[in-house]
């Protein structure tokens, strides 16, 4: 195809997206669109399955049967969401095994927040309330993104995820209405998860490399800083309901902006964790790679069995 033809196709493609038309797997798309989508969707999928690990640690220790089933169902949903997203990614011509390979080799990224440890039961509350809260802010606009399979996966994810944040908030509420020891546990979890949750919404706009292009493709509807402000503005009043203190001495209401002003985020810490030097990066990867490798013989056995069964069926038919 000549460059002229490609430019014309791209123009036509961009017009379609501007008209809010969806792009489907077999449609022509610029190579950069495909690559950007593979990167973002797989990063999102990886975040779901790595995100299972900190919470998964607490399934066996949940304090009541009711909490145990809720947590199990939640972590299971994350596996489901990873699965929907990997499937969406596969429509772009890359297999799930290749995507795993990218995760396991460290080539692909996932949300850095899961590199922090879940130390107490209150962390299950804080993760649901803050981490899922921040995730929802990121995800809801994606239900309307330009790539059809991604948008459909996100609609399913958002529908199912609606119970996750409530589950977390309810855990916090119960702790805050409990004994002083329980309330202290809740405050400690908020202290540890607050700043990583703000970082989760991505680097500041002036440092964000993909924003402009992603906006055009509707992979992003708001900038990182806008999303972060939205998250803070909606979360601070929720902390008030709990009677907890946000660990930021600079946090105050700005009457003029009708928003909260907040303190400086430690971006050095953010980049350190992104680059693989967070408290749990190695552990998380070890768990993922280990599960995959321990599963190899199982997956092979299932394929071998399927082939034998197929062969027997064909022989019978003859």
């Amino acid at each position, binding site marked *: 195809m000549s460059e002229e033809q490609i430019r014309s196709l791209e123009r036509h493609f961009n017009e379609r997206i501007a008209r809010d038309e969806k792009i*489907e797997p*077999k*449609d*022509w798309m610029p190579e950069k669109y495909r690559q950007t989508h593979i990167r973002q969707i797989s990063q999102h999928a990886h975040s779901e399955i790595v995100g299972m690990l900190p919470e998964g640690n607490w399934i066996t220790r949940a304090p009541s049967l009711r909490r145990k089933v809720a947590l199990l169902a939640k972590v*299971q*949903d994350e596996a*489901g969401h990873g*699965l*929907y997203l990997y*499937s969406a990614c*596969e429509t772009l011509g890359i*297999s*799930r*095994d290749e995507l795993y390979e990218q995760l396991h080799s460290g080539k692909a990224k996932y949300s850095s927040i899961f590199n922090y440890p879940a130390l107490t039961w209150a962390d299950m509350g804080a993760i649901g309330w803050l981490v899922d809260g921040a995730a929802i802010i990121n995800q809801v606009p994606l239900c309307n993104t330009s790539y059809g399979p991604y948008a*459909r*996966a996100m609609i*399913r994810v958002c529908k*199912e995820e609606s119970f996750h944040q409530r589950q977390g908030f309810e855990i916090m509420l119960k702790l805050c209405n409990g004994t002083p020891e329980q309330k202290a546990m809740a405050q400690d979890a908020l202290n540890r998860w607050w700043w990583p949750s703000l970082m989760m919404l991505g680097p500041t706009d002036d440092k964000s490399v993909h924003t402009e292009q992603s906006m055009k493709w509707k992979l992003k509807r708001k900038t990182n800083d806008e999303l972060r402000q939205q998250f803070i503005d909606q979360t601070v009043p929720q902390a008030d309901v709990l009677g907890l203190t946000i660990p930021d001495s600079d946090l105050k209401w700005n009457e003029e902006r009708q928003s909260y002003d907040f303190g400086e985020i430690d971006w050095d810490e953010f980049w350190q964790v992104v680059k693989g030097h967070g408290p749990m990066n190695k552990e998380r990867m070890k768990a993922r790679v280990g599960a995959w490798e321990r599963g*190899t013989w199982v*997956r*092979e056995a*299932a*394929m071998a*069995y*399927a*082939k034998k*069964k*197929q062969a027997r069926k064909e022989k019978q038919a003859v």
Partner: protein
Amino acid sequence: MATKNWPLWEIFVRSKNGLEHRHFGSLHAADAEMALENARDVYTRRNEGVSIWVVESKHITASNPENNGELFEPAQDKVYRHPTFYDVPDEVKHM
């Protein structure tokens, strides 16, 4: 190597009797029985279905969007296939 990987299946679910099966998504499974079981566990956890179809993705033949012009545009001007094409006086009821 490639033979070790579980193939991809497309999942269709009837959410209740009276409705058609609708495409819900896809998943991996070694064989059709496993695809059905996986589909049950993945796509009907919240009581979303009463019947499941699974089809291995490679067996689906899809039309090519490049041919959309010749495939679908000719139908656009066949206005006589729609009831509004025909003039009937307002006083005629039940039509």
